[in-house]
């Protein structure tokens, strides 16, 4: 086993880890704090990819797409939250799943209506387009950017939640909404904000992923399966759990692609099965629902 393969596998693993965690983090945070399970979560991820394709086409700049698309998509999500999702926070997971799969269905068709059935590639910005050599492995620079973007974004999120007054209110509202409301905070707006953050993460991931794998009609389903595996294996609602599970999945996918190329697609399911066999509620799951 040569060093170059190990390095290449390691970088791939870290890239998958970053993407999987960015997508799953929003899903699991919204579940943990609002009790809302959103099966259309990755539809916003897909939508952001397509919007980014259009924005990049018009402006010719990836950076403009990265700036605009997540904001547009998360904004659209906020409107939906006000109109639809908000009514469902206390309606039970069955109603939430039903409505959000309906929504995912609609978004998938609407995307096909606007952009057609074909896949599109988005060029990475010139600055990140090349390759670099490390221990004999030639690797795309863009993967480094994905990892850096994920670390940066999640770092900001962590600081926001743990280090600011707003973060304190959010955390308090998740566990004691009535008390926080009694103290004069608008809990509904706090919930909307949490929802918005979750969608922004997914949309951001959609744009960042686009230069790597392109945008295609099935990407919402692919990502949904991956995100559900991460969230279930990590324990529903647990952010550290999602972080670890995304890491394990990243490892098996990154190295699996290199050493068992044809069979790597099965590894996430094997990991999920193994986790559930020994920890039925996931790695960090606590019995509640």
């Amino acid at each position, binding site marked *: 086993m040569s060093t170059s393969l190990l390095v290449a596998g390691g970088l791939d693993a870290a890239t998958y880890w970053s993407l999987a965690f960015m997508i799953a983090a929003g899903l699991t945070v919204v*579940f943990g704090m609002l009790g809302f*399970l959103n*099966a259309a979560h990755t539809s916003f991820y897909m939508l952001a990819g397509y919007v980014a394709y259009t924005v990049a086409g018009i402006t010719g700049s990836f950076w403009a797409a990265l700036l605009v698309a997540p904001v547009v998509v998360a904004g659209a999500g906020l409107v939906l939250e006000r109109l639809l999702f908000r009514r469902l926070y*206390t*309606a*039970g*997971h*069955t*109603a939430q*799943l*039903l*409505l959000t*799969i*309906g*929504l*995912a*269905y*609609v978004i*998938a*068709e*609407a995307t*096909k*209506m606007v952009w057609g059935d074909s896949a599109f590639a988005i060029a990475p910005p010139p600055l990140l387009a090349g390759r670099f050599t490390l221990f004999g492995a030639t690797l795309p620079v863009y993967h480094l950017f994905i990892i850096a973007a994920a670390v940066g974004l999640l770092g900001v999120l962590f600081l926001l939640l743990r280090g600011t007054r707003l973060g304190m209110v959010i955390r308090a509202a998740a566990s004691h909404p009535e008390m926080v409301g009694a103290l004069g905070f608008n809990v509904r707006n706090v919930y909307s904000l949490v929802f918005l953050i979750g969608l922004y993460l997914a949309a951001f991931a959609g744009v960042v992923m686009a230069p790597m794998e392109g945008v295609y009609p099935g990407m919402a*389903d692919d990502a*949904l*399966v991956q995100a*559900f*595996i991460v*969230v*279930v294996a990590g324990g*529903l609602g647990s952010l550290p759990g999602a972080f670890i599970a995304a890491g394990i999945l990243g490892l098996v996918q990154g190295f699996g692609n290199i050493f068992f190329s*044809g*069979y790597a*697609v*099965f590894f996430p*399911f094997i990991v*999920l*099965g193994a986790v*559930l*066999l020994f920890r*039925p*509620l996931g790695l960090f799951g606590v019995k509640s*629902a």
Partner: protein
Amino acid sequence: MTVYERVLQRQRPGAPPASSHGKLAEAGATVLLLGLLAAAPLFTSRATVNDLGQAVCLGLFAISFNIIFKYAGLLSFGHAAFFGFAAYAEALLLQSFGNLPIPLLIFAAAVSAAILGLVVGQVCARREGAYFSMTTLAIGAGLYSVAQKWSAVTGGTDGLDGFMPDSITILPGWQWDSPSISQTYWLVLAILIPSALAAWALLELTAFGNAVRAVRQNEKRTKFLGYDTHHVKLANFTLAAALAGIAGALWAIDNSFVSTDSVDLTFSTTVIIIAFIGGTGWFWGPLIGAVIYIAASDWLSALTPHWQIWLGLAFILLVLFAPGGVAGLVRSGWIKWRGNV
């Protein structure tokens, strides 16, 4: 119980103790629906019979989904796994043993789906609520990637076709040479209706059915009464898988084509939509949903290639404002007309 579930409960026929009058109306509706389906080739065109063949297979599939939803209160997100598995099994069986009686081959495919359900159920049936849905989705997706990758057996993305023998054996010594569309349709119904009726009887008339409903209403209490609730749930899950398997096998026969479309995530979603359009509160509701779905897809796809967007929107409105589906609407209309039954 959540607000939504209370709404569902209100719309669910038979949820409040049904009077004998209500039961009679339900039985009448069942006979009418099944009778109309069986007699359809006598008064409709070939194309319609062709569509109905697909609709009844989808309908049985949606009924099997609803066995988990209505009776166990769980939302399966990967139900196409069983349907697709049996469809592939049926195609492969026909390829190798085309001269054996068809009912035997369908039975074998259904058993294979039931075994898959038994294995998968070991993991899924222990889950509740959202965990169940997410686990079934993952398993369904896993099976989909197997079907896609293992192209030596499944034909990959091209799928399998040409597996139907020219002359099919109904029973030993009784063969049909290149059966007509109506003949195939009746063959499908001859297996479909008894299977569905058997499942209905098992759930509505036996102690097993009562146990399944008791677990749904209060698992802890049922456990205290001495029931092994895991095995009750597992048995119900396996029953649903077997029925989905019969639907898949019949689908393979009716279409003479099987592809990864019958195991993918979209198909698992579609069956949920079908079941809800028809109405999950009535055992036969999903069958109505499938007929509506096929009719709508014919009618709408002629108008716009993106007809599924309207289907999705209709589904959202339905879940919000008429969670009982068409069967629920008919029922409340009937109650208004006849007074409270």
